[in-house]
């Protein structure tokens, strides 16, 4: 490992990811009074609601995501290839857009049930992806042995234990996303029954009191909750993604579902209809005029208006997201390599995921505390701030993807290059990076998608007010019309483009799992 590369990468992690967290911790240490009332009745009630949201959404994601992932990856389910691609749409789509569609379709359902349902729909693809990856890595010979002794049910029984860690790891990540989300609970609660959760409270505490230390103190129980989900997620990730792969691996064959093929196929298509087709269909309907009468003319006009009014926002979001993902990629590769190859890589892994443990709102407040100073004000108000914010917040994902890919790469490939005289930097650039290209591209695309749909931290930083998601957030709160629907479709389209291009031109599967 090149010391220069590692030092630079650690510096990026420290400045973009760890400094905001460290400053927040320091604020509480300097102001212990902020911890008073940490576990009062109101806080406990918020904690309970956040647990309900995170647990409910993660439970729903596990319930539908694990079977969906397994069935689409390993069986002859009708349209499995299409389902695999469409199954990513709810994850790619910003949760707020899912909320905008469903609250119109089912206006009577609000509060906790709607929020849990939406976050469950938004996060089930994470569980599905984890499960599918593990299911594809079960050795075909093990499966044939189980098939001979117990038929399809024998296979499922044998594989249950192998797939469970991966599915649970995905569930923990789903919990992380659901419990720290701010925009969906906020939007769903904007009309009718309120369902305030912790992220709302942290934001409100900071806005009302203007006190960083109070906001951090308020967030502490949520940090504990997220850490409680994150640590097992990482441990299970290692077991779930690596334990099933042998060195003389034989790929498993497609399993026949027999008479269950069509009923299960209908259920899977039903899920995709709820999570992707209905929301997108509803937006297409509204963009063309909605209940007042759909027409191509109105549809074109809505898109024209959305492009005219939000071109700059869209370009800003694209620029920030592409820049953040591109700058983060080499850093993630170096850090991921160190995590996978070092004896004490787990410690570096912990440091890398620390920014994820802080709720998004809190991470944003941390960035304000770090960068909103006399000497850094010019940077704080520039687009560079948004890029640093995205890198700090999401660097953990491409890093974990890289670590997982390096761990499954034969160490001898690097050793052969080392013996040939290649420097650490050349080994990284010419051997490791090209061999892990699908994983690196997966990391880039995941980071790009997360940055494009990011709202919770960007809402706090002035420079991020020109992003398209911030524009969308404002638009949905000031009424809904064809413009909002067209803008939502534009965001989804732009977000989905890199993944589609990769599939069309590379012919390789993307590796998008941490």
């Amino acid at each position, binding site marked *: 490992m090149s010391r220069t590369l590692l030092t630079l990468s650690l510096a990026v992690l420290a400045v973009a990811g760890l400094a905001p967290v460290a400053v927040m911790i320091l604020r509480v240490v300097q102001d212990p009074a902020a911890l008073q009332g940490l576990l009062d009745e109101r806080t406990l009630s918020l904690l309970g609601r956040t647990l309900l949201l995170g647990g409910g959404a993660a439970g729903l994601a596990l319930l539908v995501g694990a079977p969906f992932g397994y069935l689409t990856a390993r069986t002859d389910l009708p349209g499995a290839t299409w389902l695999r691609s469409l199954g990513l749409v709810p994850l790619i789509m910003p949760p707020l857009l899912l909320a905008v569609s469903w609250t119109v379709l089912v206006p009577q359902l609000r509060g906790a049930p709607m929020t849990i349902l939406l976050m469950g729909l938004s996060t089930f693809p994470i569980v599905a992806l984890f499960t599918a990856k593990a299911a594809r890595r079960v050795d075909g010979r093990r499966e044939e042995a189980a098939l001979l002794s117990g038929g399809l049910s024998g296979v499922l029984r044998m594989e249950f234990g192998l797939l469970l860690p991966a599915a649970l790891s995905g569930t923990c990540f789903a919990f992380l996303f659901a419990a720290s989300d701010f925009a969906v609970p906020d939007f769903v609660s904007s009309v009718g029954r309120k369902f305030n959760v912790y992220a709302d409270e942290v934001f409100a505490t900071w806005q009302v009191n203007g006190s960083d230390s109070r906001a951090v103190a308020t967030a502490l129980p949520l940090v504990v909750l997220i850490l409680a989900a994150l640590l097992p997620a990482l441990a299970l990730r290692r077991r779930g993604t690596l334990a099933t792969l042998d060195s003389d691996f034989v790929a498993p064959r497609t399993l026949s579902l027999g008479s269950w093929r069509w009923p299960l196929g209908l259920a899977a298509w039903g899920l995709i209809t709820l999570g992707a087709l209905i929301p997108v269909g509803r937006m297409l309907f509204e963009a063309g005029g909605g209940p007042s009468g759909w027409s191509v003319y109105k549809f074109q006009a809505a898109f024209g208006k959305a492009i005219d009014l939000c071109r700059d926002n869209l370009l800003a979001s694209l620029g920030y997201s592409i820049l953040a993902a591109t700058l983060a990629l080499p850093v993630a590769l170096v850090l991921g390599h160190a995590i996978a190859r070092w004896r004490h890589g787990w410690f570096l892994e912990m440091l890398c995921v620390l920014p994820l443990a802080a709720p998004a709102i809190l991470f944003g407040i941390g960035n304000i505390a770090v960068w909103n100073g006399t000497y850094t004000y010019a940077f704080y108000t520039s687009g560079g701030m948004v890029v640093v914010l995205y890198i700090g917040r999401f660097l953990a994902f491409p890093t974990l993807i890289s670590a997982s890919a390096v761990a499954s790469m034969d160490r001898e490939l690097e*050793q052969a290059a080392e013996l040939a*005289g290649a420097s650490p930097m050349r080994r990284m650039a010419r051997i490791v990076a090209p061999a892990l290209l699908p994983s690196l591209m997966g990391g880039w695309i995941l980071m790009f998608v997360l940055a494009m749909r990011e709202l919770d931290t960007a809402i706090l930083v002035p420079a991020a007010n020109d992003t398209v998601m911030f524009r969308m957030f404002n638009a949905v709160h000031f009424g809904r019309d064809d413009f909002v629907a067209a803008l939502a479709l534009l965001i989804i389209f732009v977000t989905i483009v890199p993944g589609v291009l990769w599939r069309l031109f590379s012919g390789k599967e993307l590796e998008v799992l941490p």
Partner: protein
Amino acid sequence: MTNNNRSAISVRGLRTRLGASAKLGPLDLELAVGEHALLVGPSGCGKSSLLRILAGLLPTESGDISLFGQEVSRGSKILLPPRKRGIGFLFQGGALWPHMNVAAHLNFVLRCAAIAPAEWDARRAELLTQVGLEGFEDRRPGTLSGGEAQRLGLARALAPRPRLLLLDEPLGPLDAERRTSLLELFENLRRRLDLTILHVTHDPAEASSMTDRTLHMRADGTLAGENNA
């Protein structure tokens, strides 16, 4: 430290742990320049680890190692990094780079060895002729047979003109005919290029007819003795 210029490998008092329970050594080993020695022993006794230690890819806890009279490691301290030891290493599974074709494999090593690009074509052709892979320049590792892959691994190992060649179970995945052919190739190359070869295998019959010496390792990671050819 040894200063014996006729010694290609000199190991004194080598000892290290391999994982939680296995260990290697204590062992001493001497290999003369130009010698072709076979190292045999049961699976898991540490043969491949010994090769990696000689190459500088694994650290040791104690013992001194010298290559061609130059001390390369002392105790747990690596004095000369792997890329400066002048070693060619043929890995058990080939360890070929999946994203590079045959020509790119060799070009990569030639560039690392600071050979002028103008000489690459000639040197590449020479290497491919030596291992019998003429016309394979555009092929990727995934399209090569087991024997061809090992020959490419061998060409890659020879590209920087090493003085010492370490072979880690190089015949494992091959059938009898290809084994014989590759063994003859090792021996021809040793004579023509004046190489010293340490060849690791778990099968004593594998190459004993073509080597100068057979060293036996015990399951506990120590050397049991040797037979001379």
